């Protein structure tokens, strides 16, 4: 079973690496996603589509394989052996953070404290970019939590493999390609609304371009809430839902009252993941950034190309700190509200019991 999980993990990493644009572009390696991005930037969508065709085929195939093979064993107890693997997991996490975050930034750190200029640049030009990205990433995270909740409530007892496969394809296709698709859909949508006239025309004129980017983040990472919702349901004893079914509760009631309260930690985790990933997303941001607003990742990417690494360092720290603070506050609010809800329910029951007696 471990071999299967390792193979699925390796396939997922390969899938994501084959669609990566950010690292390959920065390191000036001409990969397929870079080629697709350039073709689209030059206004040649047909060439981009032909270039992307083999990759899309591969992604689709891998998504189907992953959806069929990587599903956890429903017979296996949830988190079996987790305590034994805990130590390794922590070391792997530390190594990942060191390799992906600390090491690259350490290179820029030396020059960052040499003067006030990098910090000034980061605060003057970078802060608005951070604000744009935080707003859009938060919207995408909220949509992701809602998607996960809808999936849990509507189908608490069923697998949603086709939906998961579709989410995986959206996650793995090159971002530029997804952005081009959304741009075209947005254009068709606008034209459709214009032809409707009246309220439709008004909506078409006033719908902000940032809505499309927020939606794009959500679509790109929709796999995460779907996957985590599935994990939470698979880890749930079926008897919990069957007891509710025997009592005469409908599927929606079972989803809402039994499955959702037990899955909310997974859904919040999915929201946090989507938030962090959307904050650093580049290809889609670059294509769909609304006029006059530069998302954080685009600003950082441009600064790195110009060589202003100290400013990149300063803003990256600021972004990391903001993300950690926001996620910490969200987690605190969630745990407090859960405690408050229970306390409130107990208080209400106590009050009612007093009144009855």
């Amino acid at each position: 079973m471990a071999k299967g999980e390792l193979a699925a993990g390796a396939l997922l990493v390969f899938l994501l690496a084959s669609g990566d644009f950010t690292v390959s572009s920065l390191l000036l390696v001409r990969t397929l996603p870079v080629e697709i991005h350039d073709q689209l930037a030059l206004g040649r969508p047909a060439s981009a589509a032909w270039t992307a065709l083999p990759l899309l085929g591969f992604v689709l195939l891998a998504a189907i394989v992953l959806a069929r093979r990587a599903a956890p064993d429903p017979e296996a107890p949830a988190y079996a052996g987790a305590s034994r693997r805990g130590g390794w997991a922590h070391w792997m996490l530390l190594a990942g953070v060191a390799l992906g975050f600390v090491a690259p930034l350490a290179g820029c750190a030396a020059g960052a404290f040499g003067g006030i200029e990098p910090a000034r640049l980061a605060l003057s030009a970078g802060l608005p970019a951070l604000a744009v990205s935080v707003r859009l990433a938060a919207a995408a995270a909220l949509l992701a939590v809602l998607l996960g909740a809808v999936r849990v409530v509507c189908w608490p007892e069923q697998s949603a493999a086709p939906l998961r496969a579709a989410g995986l394809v959206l996650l793995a296709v090159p971002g530029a390609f997804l952005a081009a698709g959304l741009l075209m859909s947005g254009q068709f949508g606008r034209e459709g609304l214009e032809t409707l006239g009246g309220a439709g025309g008004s909506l078409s004129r006033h719908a902000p371009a940032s809505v499309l980017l927020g939606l794009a983040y959500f679509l790109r990472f929709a796999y995460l809430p779907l996957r985590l919702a599935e994990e939470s349901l698979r880890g749930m004893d079926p008897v919990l839902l069957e007891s509710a079914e025997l009592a005469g509760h409908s599927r929606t009631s079972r989803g809402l009252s039994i499955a959702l309260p037990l899955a909310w930690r997974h859904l919040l985790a999915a929201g946090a993941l989507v938030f962090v990933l959307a904050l650093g997303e580049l290809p889609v941001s670059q294509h769909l950034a609304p006029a006059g607003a530069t998302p954080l990742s685009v600003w950082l990417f441009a600064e790195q190309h110009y060589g202003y690494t100290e400013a990149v360092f300063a803003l990256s720290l600021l972004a990391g700190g903001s993300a950690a603070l926001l996620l910490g506050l969200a987690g605190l609010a969630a745990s407090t509200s859960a405690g408050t809800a229970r306390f409130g329910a107990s208080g209400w029951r106590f009050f009612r019991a007093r009144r009855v007696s």
Partner: protein
Amino acid sequence: MSELDCQGLAKTVGESDRAAVLRGVSFHVRAGSCVGLSGATGSGKTTLLRLIAGLEAPDRGEIRIDGRLASSPAWLLPPGQRRIGFVFQGLGLWPHLDVAGHLDYVLAASPLKGQARARHKDDLLEAFRLRDLRRRMPAELSGGEKHLLAIARALAGEVRLLLLDEPFAGLDGSLKSRVLETVARYRRARGLTAILVSHQTDELNALCEERLHLREGHIAPPLGRQASAYGEGGGGARP
């Protein structure tokens, strides 16, 4: 109370290597009686209870509750409409609901309303000695209290038939006697029809008037104490 009639039930389980667990099980349970069901591990006891509850459909045969067709390969009355209480082997308590919350949630789907609902809930809390524990979460209950809560929850929805799948497993000594006594008293007072799956003679003796034994997918010929019941012809269980 309810009358149960199972005729020629057959069921195959498993996805890759399918195995016939039940191969034509027929028996009848009289209204108000309790039947003990025993058999080796894997003999299909739990599968049989799940078929009766409507959680699975039979491959062959039919189940009638009070003369009304409940299950056949072509027809499955939804579990929620059968008025069956089921105590699962693993109990399956809802970890996010407290004791009162368990009963409230079941009662929310029952036809009982207002004062009648509150009275029924109070009766259950009293009968199963859960009154002082109603704010406790399942994780805060002892083993015996968890079993009592699972049984009280199964009975909350105005059930006509109670299915008990090894509900006393893991309990020992005086604790088991206490739970057994509580269930037996409640069942007798309401004349509830019940089926108890168990390997333990003391449990079967305490709760059941009749016994059935599952062997190789069939109801085995009666032995020992069962023989008298079948011999008399008026027993609660009739294969």
